[in-house]
């Protein structure tokens, strides 16, 4: 902690003297390597360098934010002036002044020890890794006709300092890849997606070898080509960990982000109450070892933690940043008395910003449904006809609690056994109604790397065990 700390502290000092009651500086020095390939050809190798700072201040209960693409003292000074100016203009109009929930100041240096540092891996080897996936997908089935792969590694350091006395230097490390492939036979189109990510380093390719990944995607697409359309309507279903993850994240998770809850999500009237069946426990956890949504401190300098959102069907916490923890503390008396003490309000370490260009928002980390005791066989044996839903194409949810998820891999369940594959399926419905219909939860568990968009992109992990719902609305094109 040398020069950088002194420089950021003097900027904070300057901001406070200019009239801010709170000042925070987030500076980054980041390198990116990005490779994109199409059909076995490397389109482009990008080497990027990004350096800059985002400064956030509070003046009379209003936020001001400014960014600058450099770290020299005079640019930072100009940015803090901009931020204070912005906050002052807004502060005259604030009816509910922003206050921050108190947290203990932290001083820390967080070094990541990568399994393999992507900076030590040659561009050649990175290209080769990506092209091996491509080759596996194409050779898996001759009807495969396109494969697009993106690879990115992000490395660097983030510096965080605020006027409460917190100073953190934290390494950043992400290795990520996404593969899209498609196939066609006559009028039948099939497409699939796989995504992997690690916060540990390039070593992920030793576990998830390019060949394993390619085969998984190849098989998914091949199955779709012979798959049949689903029947529309309500059916019992067993959801795999990937679907459970998207459900925990998209359908439920966003409703429990305190800013969206406060905005009027359907959870607002249900704090401390039963919203899901007793089999359902949903957790957002920033501390999962190697999880794609894991980190030590969030972008307000609050330690990441394991936050239980739903315990045995009851909402017991939300995901908070410092602003919304303070807002909900003021709101606590509106929570029914019998459950008030059960409901926990404190900053949970969910404040995340994509980079220095944007201020932090409440974002998820690793979001999952906790495993219980059923085996997969026990989950499906009683289903006479239903669906086993494995993998999704995309999902969306609304604050009123409705959701829609497009499915890229699913099977019929016939007389207690997994049957034929189904294509172009989607599931939709009301999240809380569906959670109440969960009647058995498996004992397996996996987390899948993903990215979440809420104006900014955040790396997340989503997952859980297999589970069974008594009824879910199945839709399908054609």
């Amino acid at each position, binding site marked *: 902690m040398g020069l950088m700390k002194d420089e950021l502290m003097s900027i904070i000092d300057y901001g406070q003297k200019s009239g801010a009651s709170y000042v925070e500086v987030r500076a980054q020095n980041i390198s990116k390597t990005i490779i994109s390939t*199409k059909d076995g*050809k*490397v389109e*482009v*190798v*990008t*080497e*990027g*360098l*990004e350096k800059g700072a985002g400064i956030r201040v509070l003046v009379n209960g*209003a*936020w*001001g*934010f*400014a*960014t600058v*693409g*450099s770290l020299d003292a005079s640019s930072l000074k100009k940015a803090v002036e*901009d931020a204070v100016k*912005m906050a002052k*203009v*807004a502060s005259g*109009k604030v*009816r*509910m002044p*922003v206050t921050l929930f108190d947290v203990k100041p932290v001083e820390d240096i967080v070094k990541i020890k990568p399994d393999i540092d992507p900076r030590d891996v040659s*561009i050649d080897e990175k*290209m080769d890794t990506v092209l091996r996936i491509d080759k596996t997908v194409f050779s898996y089935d001759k009807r495969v*006709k*396109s494969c697009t792969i993106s690879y990115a590694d992000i490395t660097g350091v983030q510096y965080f300092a605020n006027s409460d006395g917190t100073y953190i230097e934290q390494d950043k490390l992400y290795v990520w890849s996404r593969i899209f492939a*498609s196939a066609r036979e006559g*009028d*039948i*189109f099939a*497409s699939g997606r796989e995504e992997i990510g690690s916060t540990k380093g390039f070593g992920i390719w030793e576990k998830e070898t390019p060949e394993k990944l390619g085969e998984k995607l190849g098989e998914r697409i091949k199955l779709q080509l012979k798959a049949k359309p689903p029947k*529309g309507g309500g059916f019992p279903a067993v959801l795999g960990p990937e679907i459970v993850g998207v459900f925990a994240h998209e359908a439920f998770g966003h409703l429990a982000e305190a800013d969206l809850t406060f*905005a*009027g999500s*359907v959870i607002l009237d249900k704090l401390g109450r039963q919203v899901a069946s007793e089999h359902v426990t949903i957790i957002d956890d920033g501390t999962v070892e190697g999880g794609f949504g894991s980190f030590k401190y969030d972008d307000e300098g609050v330690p990441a933690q394991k936050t239980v959102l739903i315990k045995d069907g009851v909402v017991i916490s939300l995901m908070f940043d410092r602003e919304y923890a303070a807002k909900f503390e003021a709101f606590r008396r509106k929570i029914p008395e019998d459950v008030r003490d059960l409901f926990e309000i404190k900053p949970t370490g969910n404040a995340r910003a994509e980079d220095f*260009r944007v201020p932090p928002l409440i974002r998820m980390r690793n979001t999952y449904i906790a495993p219980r005791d059923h085996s997969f066989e026990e989950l499906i044996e009683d289903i006479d006809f239903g669906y086993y839903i494995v993998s999704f*194409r995309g*999902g*969306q949810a*609304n*604050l*009123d*609690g*409705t959701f*829609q*998820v*497009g499915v890229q891999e699913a099977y019929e369940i016939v007389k207690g056994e997994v049957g034929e594959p189904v294509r*172009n399926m*989607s599931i*939709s*419905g009301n999240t809380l109604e569906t959670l109440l219909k969960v009647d058995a939860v498996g004992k397996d568990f996996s987390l899948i790397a993903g990215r979440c968009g809420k104006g900014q992109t955040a790396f997340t992990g989503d997952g859980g065990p297999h589970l069974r719902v008594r009824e879910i*609305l199945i*839709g*399908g*094109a*054609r």
Partner: protein
Amino acid sequence: MKTVENLLEIVKLAVKEAERAGAKETEAFASWNRNVEVEISQGQIAKSSITVDQGIGIRVIIDKRIGFAYTNSFNEKTVKETALKAVKSAKANKPDKNWKELPSPKPLPTVEEVFDNKIVEMSVEDVVKIALRMLDAATSYDKRVIPFMGSSSTIHVKEAIANSQGIEGFDEGTAIVSYLATIARDPPHVSPWCAEFDANRILKIDPEWVGKEAARLAIESLKGEKVEKGEYPVIFMQDALFSLWTYTLIPAVRSDYIQRDRSALKGKIGQQVASELLTILDDGTYKGGLKTSKFDGEGVPRQKTPIIEKGILKGYLYNNYTAKKENKESTGNADRSESYGVVRSSYALTPTVAPSNFFVKPGTISSDGMISEIKEGFLVKDVQGAHSSNPESGELSVVATPCWKIENGEIAYAAKGVMIVGNMYDMIKNVTAVANNLRKYDYLITPWIRIDNVKIVTK
């Protein structure tokens, strides 16, 4: 260590430096943008920001090997280092046999209503006022409305490009946006999320309308009723068309999708692919268009490109690379933007293919007239889940929200749990009316469109 302020100077410097380092062909694209934004959250203004982002991306080609590097520093030394990195990245890459050459200079069009100095000179207070006017209009409409998210913002963008073929270009643009998302609560009823916006390149914006509309939409979709499944005529508003086409029709007319055999419209030029009522052209020079500019992401002039004329497929969208692969000319559709939005390109990205302004020729019927002609059907403002559509087959399955039932020529009530299933390439054949209410919605400029025999599934 000198920092270069002039964008055109910096791209020329980058080209020179890369050539000195061994590049055969070089293209440098620099951008600078300043965004002033006042954010609304939970019914009040509580956050405002000034973000300035600038940088340069350098593309280098050596013996058909392509390399790219970028930096967000305009420091002369960093730019030189970045040029060197691009050269190294090209040398590490494998040759692309389809690479021909970078584009050559051509006369640039004049474009109108894309820059307004009044936007540049707006004070932060002015931007706050716009947000307040919008907010007041929403809250005074009905007490049950919560304007939970919104913003007013101004954007000022400068872009410069230079390449080793002699292209040199500079462009400057502005935009102003006011946006509001609301929900209405009247326990036990909660409306779906309803959003409205107004965006323009010049200082002509109606925040009161945005606030009132966002509020009206939420109130009018507060008490949703379930409906019968079946096949109905459906009127799609701009928001819904944007969501649906972004994941179906747009990729289908992109030359890169065509060349990779990933489009259902491949090989159909000259064929009837849509209703005779549908005429679409991509017009990068459209007066005041949110995507209008002098040149595309490779310095190629923006132009008008016919896509569908009276239902007959006329052409696809090309950038320099995909065009030269077929010995054609680029249609000026090289795109460097990160995501959808107003006018902004990123120095950190290499060019792909995307529409500029995708313009649907309006019809003569008014929006009210369109509703009055439907005995039983739906009016769909937006859809959820369009990104899970299959871009190649056109198959889709989306939830319509907000959405209203039309009965006997009038909007009868809000409909909930309405799922639209079908195939976009069948749906565009069933267009039975195109309204006259053109609206700019990101890259799309379209009126409402009526499509018949749309399959509706419900719970």
